[in-house]
């Protein structure tokens, strides 16, 4: 899965979690753009839950706790999906 495909999945997940911010999410072109959105922990938590279900992957709680940027999330997804 390419970075662009992963970002697309993240955009879809975010639109489901926070539909009122869909226009902002459409502008996301890189992991750094995601970081600049200033998502709170509850939004990110729900996004991660939805990504796990949608992509059939699983993150450890310790990884999520230590995750510092969207690039970490994208890399973790890339390592789990072919």
């Amino acid at each position, binding site marked *: 899965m390419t970075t662009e495909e992963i970002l697309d999945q993240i955009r879809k997940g975010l639109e489901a979690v926070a*539909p009122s911010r869909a226009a902002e999410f459409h502008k996301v072109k890189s992991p750094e753009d995601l970081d600049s959105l200033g998502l709170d922990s*509850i939004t990110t938590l*729900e996004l991660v839950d939805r990504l796990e279900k949608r992509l059939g992957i*699983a993150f*450890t*709680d*310790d990884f999520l706790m*230590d995750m510092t940027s969207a690039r970490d999330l994208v890399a973790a997804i890339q390592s*789990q999906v072919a």
Partner: protein
Amino acid sequence: MTATEPPAGSPRRYSPRLRPLLYDLVQGVIRFLFLTLSHPKTANLDACPRQGPAILAVNHLSYFDGPMVLAMLPRRVRPMAAERLRRHYFFGPVMVATGAIFIRRGQMDRAAMRALVEVIEEGGCVAVAIEGTRSPDGKLQEGKNGVAYLAAKTGAPLIPAAVWGTEQIWPAWKRLGRAEVHLSLGDPITLDPQALDVSTLDETTRVIMSRIAGLLPARYLPETGVQE
């Protein structure tokens, strides 16, 4: 560490199991201390169901808020507490003995959220500081969405709770006096468990904060008012 493999031998930080006898013993001691060393006043405690799932959304002025809720509520309640409180010389053991669920603030602590959901789904009652931390100026702060998220996930009734006067406990003791402390509950709010989007959580948080503001004396409200 990888994203998929838990580190070997990592300690389990959460213990959703409550030890009822230890809880009741500690609750009895804390209640006795509150009754003898302060003047506790309560209102509308019947708003909290005696059994079944419930979420108490509490404002936060002092370290004594959690013990005050534990002491006065007529049922066992599991507090959510900041991880750093676990090491406090007095409140740490109290929190551990009452089955607190410790959360790391500022991090995505999914295990703690899962533990809270588990307690609620098993019919327990949790108490959560809706502002996320103690108020730095004694005024009601902006609410966080964590409480609304728990309510939306579980469908449990959400009970606004206002605590005040607890910030005067230490100053009163220094004068060998007793502070008047208050716990007042608002009527429960129930969310549609399907309504889990951020706009709904924001709106629910605003409603709860407004209810808590309605329970607090005016001196605890921000001068800018509470958004409704």
